[in-house]
């Protein structure tokens, strides 16, 4: 007769193997980028403009461009996303409209990033005549990160116990006062988590900014929101595929800066969420 514990051991071995097959390569990727990218990092690399056809110098304009884009995206997406989350958690009833909104959010989250790029090109660049500019790119990225912000904020709002609202309402506060002074303050860590995750996503995406803002090479910093800008992910794409004979070191260095930026934001978000869960009094 087959020994059930033997097949269990075999099965568990394969499950562990599957886990290692994900964890080990990811660890290797991060280690390789750090190891090969670190020698490139210097004050000059971070603060200088690219020189000699991007084969030397630094990546400062790309860092600044990404900072502008990410700021613009969050300024646009956070208010809309937060209010939408408040609607879903506090006002909506369980009806067809609510179902439709949730389905739209799922779909927004699933639209391929390059389709966002097309959309941004058609609506902002051409229809609104913003041209390829920081404004167009930020709005495109903003719509792309909207579902992340809505979903995480809604979870945060819904995790505030119902009794908090009842007490506030029974003291004569109006619905909006209750939301403003009771529900929102208790949900801030969760909303912050969502915002940071959105920032990280916007910083790393390339396809949506390809046709809406990204400049191949710009020696000066953008002066207004109607200017084009360089961006870190696009810069990495350009120096690894479009420009021949770029020093490996510069490629790895750029990848390291981008990876650090994105992973750092995600790590902060994970830590905030973890602390918040632990400290929760209810």
């Amino acid at each position: 007769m087959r020994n059930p514990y033997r097949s269990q051991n075999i099965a568990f071995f394969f499950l562990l193997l599957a886990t290692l097959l994900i964890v080990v390569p990811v660890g290797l990727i991060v280690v390789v980028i750090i190891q090969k990218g670190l020698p490139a990092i210097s004050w000059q690399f971070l603060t200088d403009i690219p020189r000699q056809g991007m084969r030397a110098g630094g990546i400062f304009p790309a860092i600044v461009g990404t900072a502008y884009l990410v700021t613009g995206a969050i300024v646009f997406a956070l208010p809309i996303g937060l209010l939408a989350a408040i609607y879903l958690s506090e006002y909506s009833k369980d009806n067809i409209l609510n179902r439709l909104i949730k389905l739209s959010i799922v779909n927004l989250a699933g639209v391929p990033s390059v389709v966002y790029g097309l959309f941004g090109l058609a609506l902002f660049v051409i229809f609104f005549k913003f041209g390829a500019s920081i404004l167009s790119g930020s709005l495109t990225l903003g719509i792309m990160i909207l579902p992340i912000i809505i979903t995480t904020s809604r979870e945060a709002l819904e995790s505030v116990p119902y009794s908090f609202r009842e007490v506030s309402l029974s003291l004569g506060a109006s619905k909006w006062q209750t939301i403003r002074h009771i529900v929102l303050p208790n949900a801030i860590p969760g909303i912050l988590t969502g915002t940071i995750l959105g920032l990280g996503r916007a910083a790393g995406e390339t396809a949506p900014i390809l046709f809406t803002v990204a400049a191949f090479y710009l020696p000066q910093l953008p002066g207004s929101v109607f200017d084009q800008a360089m961006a870190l992910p696009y810069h990495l794409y350009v120096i690894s595929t479009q420009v021949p004979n770029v020093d490996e070191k510069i490629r790895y260095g750029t990848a390291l800066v981008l990876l650090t930026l994105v992973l750092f934001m995600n790590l902060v978000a994970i830590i905030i969420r973890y602390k918040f869960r632990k400290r929760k009094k209810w």
Partner: protein
Amino acid sequence: MRKLKELIVEKAILICGLASIFFVGLIFLFLLREGLAVFSFITPFKFLAGKSWYPISEPPQLGILPLILGSLLVTFGAAVISIPIGVGCAIYIAEIAPLRIKETLKAGIELLAAIPSVVLGFIGMVTLVPLVKSVFHLPTGLTALSGSIMLAFMAMPTIVSVAEDALYSVPKNYKEGAFALGATHWQTIWRVLLPAASSGIVAAVMLGIGRVIGETMAVMMITGNAAVIPRSILAPVRTLTATIAAEMGEAVVGSEHYFALFAIGIVLFIISFAINVTADLFLHKRQL
């Protein structure tokens, strides 16, 4: 006065609540607006089933069958790799890993999901592509296989986290019941937990595949970008997404080429819409 202010705030909340419907509609509308024009040059059938994609020849040939097959091939390869590994890892995290390791693994998977696709593409170019080239003795390592492997890493975080959620939400008394009947842990997982979580796992796989089909940068960097019907997984291919990303920069606004790229966008939008709606149905089936 205060009542007026609250009325305004509540209207703003309602409007923002509807914003996601509005944006989905807007995206579809603008894709249609720019993309449907291509069908005055070419029939939808010839567009979808045409075997050659030479957008800048005279007259342009706009058949996207090679691109569709390229996307399918890369996606199929990525699914074959990522589904068993992803589901296996989800089972390990949900059932076997000790609590401490479990939290670390979950955070690690989340970080994997966060790595920008252009970084994964770059790493694929410098490590995987030369490896594939030398292992299979190919003239170039920029192949569908390289793309599939790299994309598998993008699908896995989605598959792992959604499937893990599904396994976790199986009621605890199912498990206790199986244990009480003398089943081993593995028998319980295989005969009780997996069937009970099956619709959530199906949704996990679909969402993972949805992510792969829509992925752009990594694919563009490592699949070789040859817009021909792929003969094997070791041949260079070009996907729908990579075509848009690579060619839109050069396409003249208002040309057939430009309209055709938007029409590809429509195809991608419809595919992702179908996948997401179906996955959502599977996810809600669970909450009976």
